[in-house]
């Protein structure tokens, strides 16, 4: 809808106006932004039935944004990873829908109940509209990350993704635990942001520009790095800048050494918000890493197929530690939210394997690590939401959230639908075939092996085995155990949206399997790297004989 208004407008104007082109590919973000404003306004209404339309409006907005993203195949000029944008934005909108549905009843429950009992409605006291607005803002930021072609843009988009989440954590439940979580999340997030901003500054220092990608062979960070590649190695300051930026972004993806907040914050936040945290900032972080590294390119190393050695080693260590740390610590937990938090850490480690592997020969998804990462984000989105949604759907008779293994014992017997959602999503997280998660992991394996990262793939395999210990507990508990005492006292929360979110996720984990090939190929196309033209200091263009040349190009 918005596109039909905007497109002719742009068509008439001067094509050289770069800004307008950008607006052209920002249609999904604009749609989301409009929805955000609408939601904020609706939240002020004194009529309950109008306020109740907030999730519906949000879902519609996401649907429109997703449709716009899907139909809008424009790419960023000069971007090494041009195709990432439509794929990711569509994906974000799709996974955003169950996330929105999951949120119903998170912040507004007590207040709406009070209003229902006769308390006069006071728009200042209700956080409902704002909460959804923050959620949509965060999703908008995430989409903007995918559109970034400038370091400043990238930074702002990353922060737009994260800032609302700090608030969402704090206000998600009335408990002190949430506030503590919010503070922790905010402070460590600020440190993370400072570190990657510092890294960006170093990159600017080394290249003299903040432009990541520019069309028509104009000077940009990509061309500067390509010139470095022609010299054989990245300049020391640029190397340091990229490494620092990655370490800073590790906060977003919950990877070592910035992952410490994960279990505390996921536990403290209300369950739906935890689900949100496990997907949205993580995706934003991976997008940032992919964009940044696509500017660096995978043309270094002895065979010209890997990242510059210091960066590769840094990522390697981060990946190995992240996987191991996440999985080993998850073993100890009795609290399922903490288990899922650590599992979220571990999954980031898995995905980093794909990042290290790089785009491969560009021919097929089997060797394209970046495509594997994009595909994994899709898989992870669904299975993660599903697992959290089950916890969000149930509560103790006291109204407390359920969180221990004891609570979900025999769930398949007491609540067939939710029990099976838990079983399917956990099995998928574990990577059991033929569920969706397995295919996601498979591509990480193949890309890692074809990039020659055998040791890392071995660590990935071992970690998947360790993960079996706790995921199987999540499967065995609902499926094989008798319902325990605490499980019998559970009741379902009165929010249909949550059950829908859970069901949709579990169904996706199964029903998308026949389309794995289609989806993975789309991810592969999205993650096709176009090698940059080097621009050397004397202004001439050095053509680089790069093995990552692209078959489709």
């Amino acid at each position, binding site marked *: 809808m918005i596109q039909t208004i905007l497109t002719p407008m742009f068509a008439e104007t001067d094509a050289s106006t770069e800004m*307008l082109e950008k607006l052209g590919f920002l249609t999904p973000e604009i749609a989301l932004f409009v929805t955000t404003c609408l939601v904020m306004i609706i939240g002020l209404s004194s009529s309950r039935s109008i306020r109740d339309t907030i999730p519906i409006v949000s879902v519609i907005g996401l649907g429109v944004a997703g449709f716009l993203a899907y139909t809008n195949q424009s790419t960023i000029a000069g971007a090494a990873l041009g195709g990432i944008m439509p794929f990711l934005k569509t994906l974000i909108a799709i996974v955003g829908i169950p996330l929105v549905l999951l949120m119903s009843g998170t912040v507004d429950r007590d207040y709406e109940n009070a209003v229902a009992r006769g308390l006069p409605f006071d728009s200042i006291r209700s956080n409902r509209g704002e909460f959804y607005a923050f959620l949509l803002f965060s999703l908008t930021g995430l989409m903007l990350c995918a559109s970034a072609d400038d370091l400043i843009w990238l930074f702002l988009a990353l922060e737009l993704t994260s*800032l609302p989440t700090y*608030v969402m954590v704090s206000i998600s439940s009335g408990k002190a635990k949430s506030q503590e979580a919010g503070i922790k999340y905010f402070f460590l997030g600020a440190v*993370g942001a400072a570190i990657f901003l510092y890294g960006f500054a170093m990159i600017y220092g080394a290249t003299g520009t903040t432009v990541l990608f520019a069309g028509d062979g104009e000077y940009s960070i990509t061309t500067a790095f390509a010139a470095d590649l022609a010299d054989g190695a990245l300049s020391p300051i640029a190397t340091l800048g990229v490494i620092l930026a990655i370490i800073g972004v590790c906060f977003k993806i919950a990877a070592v050494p910035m992952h410490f907040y994960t279990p505390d914050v996921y536990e403290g936040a209300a369950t739906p918000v935890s689900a949100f945290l496990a997907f949205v900032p993580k995706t934003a972080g991976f997008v940032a890493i992919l964009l940044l590294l696509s500017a660096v390119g995978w043309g270094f190393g002895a065979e010209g197929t890997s990242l510059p050695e210091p960066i590769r080693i840094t990522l390697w260590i981060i990946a190995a530690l992240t996987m191991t740390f996440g999985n080993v610590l998850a073993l100890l937990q009795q609290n399922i939210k903490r288990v899922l938090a650590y599992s979220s850490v571990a999954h980031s480690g898995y995905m980093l394997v794909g990042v290290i592997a790089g785009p491969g020969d560009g021919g097929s998804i089997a060797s394209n690590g970046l495509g594997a990462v994009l595909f994994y984000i899709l898989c992870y989105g669904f299975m993660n939401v599903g697992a959290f949604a089950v916890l969000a759907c149930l509560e103790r008779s006291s109204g407390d959230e359920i969180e221990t293994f004891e609570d979900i014992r025999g769930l398949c017997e007491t609540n067939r639908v939710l029990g099976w959602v838990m079983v399917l999503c956990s099995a998928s997280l574990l990577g059991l075939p033929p569920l969706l998660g397995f295919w996601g992991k498979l591509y990480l394996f193949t890309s890692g092996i074809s990039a020659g990262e055998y040791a890392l793939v071995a660590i990935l395999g071992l970690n998947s085995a360790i993960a*079996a210990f706790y995921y199987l507990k999540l499967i065995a508990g609902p499926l*094989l155990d008798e319902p325990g005492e605490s499980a019998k006292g559970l009741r379902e929360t009165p929010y249909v949206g949550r059950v829908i979110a859970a069901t949709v996720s579990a169904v996706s984990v199964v029903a998308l399997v026949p389309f794995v090939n289609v989806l993975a190929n789309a991810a592969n196309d999205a993650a096709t790297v176009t090698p940059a033209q080097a621009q050397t200091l004397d202004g001439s263009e050095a053509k680089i004989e790069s093995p990552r040349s692209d078959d489709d190009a």
Partner: protein
Amino acid sequence: MSDRVVMLLAIFAPMLAGFVTLLLPARAALLRTAVGASGPLFAFVSLLGLLGDAEHSGSVGWGYIPDLGIEFFFRSDRLALFFALLVSGIGSLIVPYAHAYFRGDAAKIGRLLPMLGLFATAMLGVALSDSMLGLFVFWELTTISSFLLIGWERTNPGAVRSALQAASITGLGGLALLVGVTIFGVTGGVWRFSELGDASMPGWAMTAGVALIGVAAATKSAQFPLHGWLPGAMAAPTPVSAYLHSATMVKAGVFLLARVVVDLEGVELWPLLFVPLGALTMAYAAVQALRGATVKRVLAFSTVSQLGLFVCLYGLGGLHPSDPSHHTLEWPIGQILNHAAYKAPLFMLAGTMAIHAGVANIAQLRGLARRMPVVGWLFIVGLYAMAAGPGTFSFAAKEFFVVGAYQATEASHHAWLGWLAIVAVAIAAACNAALLVRIGRLVFGSVEEGSVEVKPGSGWMWWPAALLLLLQVVGGIAPGALEGALLSVETNPLEHLYSTFDLFGKPGLPLFVSLGALAAGVVLGLSPLLRKPGGEPCDHLFGSLHRLLELVAFAVVSTFQTGSIRRYLFLSIATLGAGLLIVMTRDERWLTVPEFTGLIDSHEPAIVIFAILAAIFVCVSALALPPCRLRIVRVLVLGAVGFGVTMLYLINRAPDLALTQIMFEIISVIMFLLVMRMLPERTRADQDRVDLPRAAFAGVIGVLVGWAVFHAGAVPDTEVRPTGSAERLGAWFLDHAHEGSALTGGRNGQGDNVVNVILVDFRGYDTMGEIAVLGIAMLAVLAMLGPRRLRPALRSEQVRVPGVQYGPQRTLVSSMLRVGMRVIVPLALIFAGYVFFKGHQSPGGGFIAGLVASVALIVYRMTEGRVALRSLIPLNPALLVAAGLAIALVTGAVPLVLDLIGGEALPFLTSGDDKLYLNRDHSEYFHLTSVMFFDLGVFIVVVGASVGMINRLEEELE
């Protein structure tokens, strides 16, 4: 019907049949059983039809993910068909047996049938898959169904633990298989077993792939020391144990080896890996079987032992893969059939005893032959076959193995492998014979007083077992009959070996070993050796491993995951510092002092000195921060740092930035102070602590970070930009502030104040976003603080000092401040207006003006109170923010619709300008630009946001 359709139907028939049973009436247990059994039976019959053509079978199927060779490609060669027939055949017998076992309990049967169907499908898929990843998918499905079936007893926590153990260990093997298969696929380009022979890949990749597949086989087929899960798996109902954990699933590993060894020739590692592994497992498990306390545990260990024999056999097969002069060990199908034909009946009979006579322990077997004659006798026949007694098929099979091993001893190299196998099989045979003797004495012993009465059971409880045992006897006594059947699936049958009588006719070492082992077994059985039942170390392997992991995890948690944000920050920053240090020490360029010329070249000496002084001031203020004890003092010192930075801006001729910085410092100091008043008092001890290590840590990090910035800042332009391209940003903006450039899409800067032009023009989109963020920040503060709560407690506690005038909220306000503010605030507001209007040409602009006005209003709010502010600005700050955003947006949108009034539509935020002449000769004019309206929006947002936030914080304190 084409072969691929037949195979597809055969594979999925059991699962479909299993799921169809769910739709049948719950009480119709018999009907359900019949339908459930029809699945495997259908598979059996339809696969039989393919047998004739097995020799010419190719790879047929459908593609799925061509890139990964994930295809449903099937292959009905003899090996696959044999295995599939075994699975479906025993499956058809197990279903009716299970019906009898559960005595027609509809609920239990209803639960079991779908799982069995799923398992049979998974197993058939393993057997028939030609694509390696396809096999892996089915392989994992067998793990899942086994997991579900082991955890059958809901009330038994041990069963769930065993299920977890089995799934974890076989799951680990599955991952090894996945990696191994992927190595073959990615490095060799081979994704199908039938193409393995064509794989061209580096030797080490081949070795790694084979080793990983070996690990997979070892876990599935329970090889030492990974066998611990199989005895645990006996928690499953007996029909399941008989089917999965003895007859079929545990052979999947062996089958996998067979698949690979046939197609993959000449891997050096092969025999060295599998012969010792199999031999060790064979001997060790046989000894453990003798010590087992329960019937099922004994049978489980004997299964492990037999699996060891298979693995050993395939290991030997790798010695002479293509040498026709030796007996090829490629197709020891007879061995597998042999095992299935005695072990499955033994399990079934064990289940029958348990159900009908309550026999679970070995000791309870006493007098069984009298209590349940048929079952007792059949059991002994089964054990006789297990002990490879002469006259059974088993005897021939064992002899066949010894002959093969004996021939291996004549191999040119690795002859010791053959001897190892012979010794191991002799030990295993002796133990099995001893078992027969011991159990036989019990079974034929007298009935003990007080044993449970035998309940009558149906014939279904024993006749499937009898049917299979018949195969043993037929194979032993009339080998020709069985041979005929097996000929159709064996490629290289050792015909003479199947005839027991032939063996006696040709005495040699193999026969001697067999008979010797039997004799030794009888002696061992009568002796008191190895009689004490007991566990074995590997029972606890899984648990110990789990505990070890937990121990490690616990150590890590208590070190790192303390929940203390301080610890987290320390760890994160320490990692960062370590990273910096490593990067810097690896490249010597970091260790040189960069030449830094910019500042000194471009300024007067006096100004340089002033700059250095300002820098020293900043550093000293920063260093003064940690020693300060009081929070408020710290905030003020932090403010001092900010003012020092302001000086640096001034020196660099940036009055705008300086003004902004000053205003911002004021607002942030006020905000800090307000927030800190809400914090609890710090304890005395906390305040007095001097933490040298932390100070040193902070110092090191500071120096490292600073050093890196120093280097980055010192890189000359010429080194980072190609000639001909634009200069650094600063110079570029200076050049284009007035005339605009192509970058702005034809928009002119038309301003002399570069900072303002950047804000509203060049980076107008950013500013747009930024004010949105400011608005969000305010909403965040409002949302986090929630609805206003007045705190009566805080009010009453306040001490009133006599003679001091209090503000409207009874807070302490100096009267001088109040009086002074009455003058200063209007002036400041007027100044804000001035700065706002002048902004585009001289220092100023909407942002700074907004800050100035905010400071004025905030001070007003602090001295005069909430009510006064409310009467001055009767609007909700949130509305102000919204209005400001709207003004900015509308201003930006006007150019888009210029075509409506006859002009040309221009991009969002394009500015236009005109001169508003103030006198007639046009010498004085006010430069009117459209960006002023945009700036107005910025102004209003800044005022709304900062006043709104601070107002709300103040309210919290009142």
